[in-house]
């Protein structure tokens, strides 16, 4: 594990060098560190940002060094506090971290060509039929590796290897909210109207990001996710029932 400055007001706790060789272990380790840091009352800590192999810690250098008053030691002091918080000193720590085992969340997706603009591109690249792509994508189990890029954008690990498809050379200027895409070896969901270069294979009627709610996202880092194929009729019905809520 290493702790590296990300500017003067943030740092990166890198828990692994690689992700793809052992994704499940890397995610578990990131989540463990993320949850321990959330609970540790480290002075000056503002917020955390977990990713594939790391947890970034955003901090206020002034609040960190209020403890001892010198600028020279702010980083070292914080790094020491972080190491203390995440080194598993007792069994209790481990049990508490493991107690948050996430449940399985089902995301309904309509894979019709009307929403899956790039199904043909993925089919061409993977040499699979569109039916096989849908079958494969909706039977796999995924985990939320991190959320970023735009508010609520969900990066999911666990895409079946034979579905991996390179990103589009020219990104789309506007992608409809709810679009499910494949970008390289990853799959993910666009929560908002945004530009993007992933291959779109379907769309979910679920609202993944709502800034009026706290927490604002449906999915959280570490969540287990499965996609369920739905018909266009179900997609429409789902949208209507949401409007009537």
């Amino acid at each position, binding site marked *: 594990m290493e702790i590296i400055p*990300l500017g003067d007001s943030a740092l990166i706790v890198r828990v692994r060098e690689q992700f793809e060789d052992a994704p499940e272990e890397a995610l578990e380790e990131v989540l463990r560190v993320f949850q321990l840091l959330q609970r540790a009352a480290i002075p000056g800590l503002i917020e955390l940002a977990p990713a594939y192999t790391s947890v970034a810690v955003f901090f206020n250098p002034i609040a960190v060094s209020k403890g001892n008053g010198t600028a020279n030691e702010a980083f070292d002091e914080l790094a020491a506090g972080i190491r203390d918080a995440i080194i598993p000193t007792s069994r209790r720590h481990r049990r508490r971290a493991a107690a948050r085992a996430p449940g399985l969340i089902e995301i309904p997706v309509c894979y019709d060509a009307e929403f899956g603009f790039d199904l043909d591109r993925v089919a061409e690249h993977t040499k699979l039929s569109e039916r096989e792509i849908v079958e494969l994508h909706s039977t796999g189990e995924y985990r939320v590796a991190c959320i970023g890029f735009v*508010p609520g954008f969900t990066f999911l690990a666990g895409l079946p290897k034979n579905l991996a498809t390179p990103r589009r050379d020219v990104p789309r200027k506007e992608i409809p909210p709810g679009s499910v895409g494949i970008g390289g070896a990853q799959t993910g969901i666009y929560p908002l109207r945004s530009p993007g270069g992933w291959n779109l294979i379907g769309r979910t009627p679920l609202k993944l990001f709502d800034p009026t709610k706290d927490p604002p996202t449906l999915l959280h880092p570490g969540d287990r996710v499965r996609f369920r194929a739905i018909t266009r009729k179900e997609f429409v019905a789902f949208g209507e029932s949401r409007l009537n809520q």
Partner: protein
Amino acid sequence: MNAVVTRAGFLTSVQDLGRTGFRQFGVSTSGALDSLALRVANLLVGNEEGSAGLEITLGGLQLRFEDERIVAWCGGEFDVQIGSRALPAGHVARLQDGDELKFARAQTGCRCWLAISGGIDVPVILGSRSTDLRGNFGGIEGRKLRDGDQLSLGEFRRSETAATGGISSWTAPHDWASPASPHPNLRFIRGVDWNRFNDVAIERFTHHKFTVSSDSDRMGVRLDGAELKREDETDLISEAVAPGTIQVPPSGKPILLLGDCQTIGGYPKIAHVITVDLGIAAQLRAGDGVRFFEVSLQDAHRLLMERERDLERFRIGVSLQRS
């Protein structure tokens, strides 16, 4: 009471000191790109430092007030007028019902921050009033201001300010009120991926001048100039980026990230502009030439602490002016 946006200008948005605590959900900081400028302007008008104000990009804003307010602004070198009187940066003015405040185009710099006594009263979304222009929430309906918008203002705690009957003679320190420079220099500390760049790239980064591209916005400043190539071209695993991070995409043209930047990125990070210089970074506009100078992390922290101490003195000074 309200202020009426008679002209919204190129890009004006409601911003406070930004949104924290939701980065794990992909929510960026947003907020005034020069947080010191907004804090100083707020202190000048008697607001809390973190009250919501307006960030004005390249000028063009025109506001009409419907009641008595105290205003102050800090930032680039803009020509600002109240009717026919000039309001320079860092001064305090008392406006009457019907007065118009006008921001012309900036001579130097790109942005400025206007504080109005009482603050701008928009709903707090995820802990902040800042506009998230990519997520389309916060501020006024998550968007930039439009002609004809009504800005709801908070309650104005009437106080006997030095600006009774006009524009104050005293001002905020010049470097805070007017941080823009025709020859901007930015100090940086080494980035997470500094060692992935070869000697040529490092020499170019630290000795050449870069030109601000017109393709820049609140997410980031794109820089043209000598290309920065990496030693190895392997793909990196995405991890957090922060305002101030300078990342280098495969084109070799660096991007200096600002307050609206994404939370996670996959490009190598060559350097990070230090917090006390982010206000200078916020003034970069297309065509500007910018140079980068290395400092240590300890120096970055020391500079930030010194500035906070100076701001504390200023805060006391302002409260004495008002008493």
